[in-house]
């Protein structure tokens, strides 16, 4: 396809917007991995579950998704916290396949419970600003996606500041770096695990809320986003949330340009190719250096 400046800018913006969503989901996943060394295969299903919460708050009470965000964030934080306490705690430090079975099982349970409770029908949240478009000359972007991008950036910044500046944030990072040392420093590691899991899961709440303003919801939403999320966290360096943030933006942009310039079918192929190359050439990820102890 031919590429002129307005189209280039349009694609770039959409790519960044798309990437911001990937970043949010991946930051949560990589935060959990970084602290607890467990891969949460149910992450996408928490994303889907958050989406349903947003939908029902909108459908039953008419509350705009963005206004419902704090409530959904809190709800998912609590669910994440409790999940860690009840289920994840039991498999920490166990062999990887046990952890995988636990989170994969959790994924199946969430997905099928949603189908039983709310059927497999697709859902869509209608907002008053859904159809707004911002036009700057030849460049036009849908307002909900721009808004999502801005809010995603704000959230990422807040999360970064939280991890960097607060006591809990420092404790989370410390536990991720060395669990035993953190323990010796008087950090309640178990509590930090629950907190990290809750925080990681609530990242999906933010992503789902922003997605819901323009993306249809179904019980299978999580699986669509999970492949790219795993690529993002590997590219960013496992456990490195800043790396995941940047990798998300990069992969989102690459995907959008690939689909326009080459073929839509290569949407997932090119990121997967990058994934393999990264694993071969720089297994610690593009931004993994910082993690080296």
């Amino acid at each position, binding site marked *: 396809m031919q590429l002129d400046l307005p189209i280039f800018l349009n694609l770039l913006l959409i790519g960044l917007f798309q990437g911001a969503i990937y970043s949010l989901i991946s930051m949560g996943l990589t935060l959990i991995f970084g602290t607890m060394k467990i891969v949460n295969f149910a992450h996408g299903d928490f994303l889907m579950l958050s989406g349903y919460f947003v939908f029902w708050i909108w459908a039953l009470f008419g509350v705009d998704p963005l206004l419902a965000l704090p409530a959904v964030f809190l709800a998912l934080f609590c669910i994440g916290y409790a999940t860690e306490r009840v289920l994840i705690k039991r498999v920490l430090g166990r062999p990887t396949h046990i952890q995988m079975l636990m989170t994969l099982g959790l994924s199946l349970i969430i997905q099928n419970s949603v189908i039983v409770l709310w059927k497999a029908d697709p859902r869509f949240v209608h907002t008053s600003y859904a159809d707004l478009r911002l036009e700057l000359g030849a460049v036009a972007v849908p307002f909900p996606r721009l808004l999502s991008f801005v809010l995603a950036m704000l959230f990422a910044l807040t999360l970064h500041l939280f991890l960097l500046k607060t006591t809990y944030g420092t404790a989370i990072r410390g536990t991720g770096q060395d669990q035993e040392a953190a323990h010796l420093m008087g950090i309640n590691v178990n509590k930090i695990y629950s907190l990290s899991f809750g925080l990681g899961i609530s990242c999906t709440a933010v992503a789902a809320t922003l997605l819901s303003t*323009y993306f249809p919801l179904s019980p299978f939403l999580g699986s669509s986003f999970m492949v790219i999320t795993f690529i993002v966290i590997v590219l960013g360096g496992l456990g490195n949330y800043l790396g995941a943030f940047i990798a998300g933006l990069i992969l989102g942009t690459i995907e959008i340009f690939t689909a326009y310039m080459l073929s839509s079918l290569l949407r997932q192929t090119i990121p997967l190719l990058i994934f393999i190359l990264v694993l071969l050439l720089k297994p610690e990820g593009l931004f993994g250096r910082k993690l080296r102890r």
Partner: protein
Amino acid sequence: MRTICTRKEAITRIQAIIIVAVVVVAAVAGGIAWTFTTPPTPTTTSAAPKVEEVRIGILAPLTGAAAYFGDGMKAMSELLAKKINDEGGIKSLGGAKVRMIVADTEGKPDVGKTQARRLITENKVHLIIGALHSGVTLPAAQESERYGIPFICDASSHVDLTRQGFRWFFRTWGSDAIFARNYFECMKWMQNKTGIKIKTIAFISEESLFGVGVATEWEKLNVDPEMGGYKLVAYIRHPVSPTDLTSEAMTLKAANPDVVLSVQTPMPDAILWTKTLKAVDFFPKAFMTTAGFIFPEYVSSVGKDGEYIIGREGWSIDLTARKPIAKEINDLFKKEANRDMHVYTMQMHTTIVVARDALERAASVDPEKLRQALANTDIPGDKIIPPWKGVKFDNTGQNIYANNFMVQLYKGVYHAIWPEEIATIPLVYPAPTWKER
């Protein structure tokens, strides 16, 4: 290369004997099992015993992503069994009662195959109806070929199903080749009707067996100058359940086709296409769709943005006003299931009408007699709900009258627009752009 085996790694003689023994025992056991499960060739018995009950196996997805469709199919089959029995059963069989045995395929090929075998060997069904998904129907129909039990296909449309040389397979529904043709016939009619020429077209298809199958048929038809001959300005193939479609929609906008032909199965994909086309501000003169675009949940999700979309359909509530049988069966179904029929429940009715007719004419449950009766089927259009001339099978088992019609979403409801004789609203072509709405 080092391939030398040390003494320790090599197997001992005793181990070798055990392995050989196990293989021999397994082979013998397998052979015995095969002998017992291989069906005897169907034989015609001269003095057939009185038939008390006719068992019809129904293959439907009762769980999994398509459970919504399977529920309706099950309800319809049981409803019709009751209706037939209340009307005196199969008269030529001395009023034998009809019993439906519904088996869940979960929408999975392997499960469908196992269930088909179970229906034949354990439930001893006389006929099988199913199995919605083409991917499930194929292995299930292979089982019925193997055992020599007639299989009436309800709504699987893959072209290959009638190209297998199956002897026991009969499809009441159309094939993707027939349906693909319907789009081109409709486009021709649209131009004649409005005088507005279609010059360019584009295809958007999901990367699935169904999506690519349909799009390939379109490509073939477009090469034929009689049928198509339009300039194909874009052919977009995209993965199923994509996380974004903006690039694809921008490609489509840049190509600016007069008509877009699209094939997407999951409803979320259909919703995303609609919303993304709006976000990039592009809508063709005619947007001709199928599958994911033609269900009530799609309409409730996209709201007014779905207006003017054209869909290929086999069922529309409009039919109840045109055909007494459509109204009768829909009322009956609604009373029982508390909702209107959908296309697959309608097809369950069509197949059961075919089955009942064949049973009456065969006056036997002998597989070969039933197969011959099915092959000689000639049911007039007023006995079935779809607006077809009837049901009559060619030598591949394909119903030669099967067809689909086109509906357009207008004021929140799908109305028939083509063929003109069943149209309930005039066609809106060209469709207004997003800004004109």
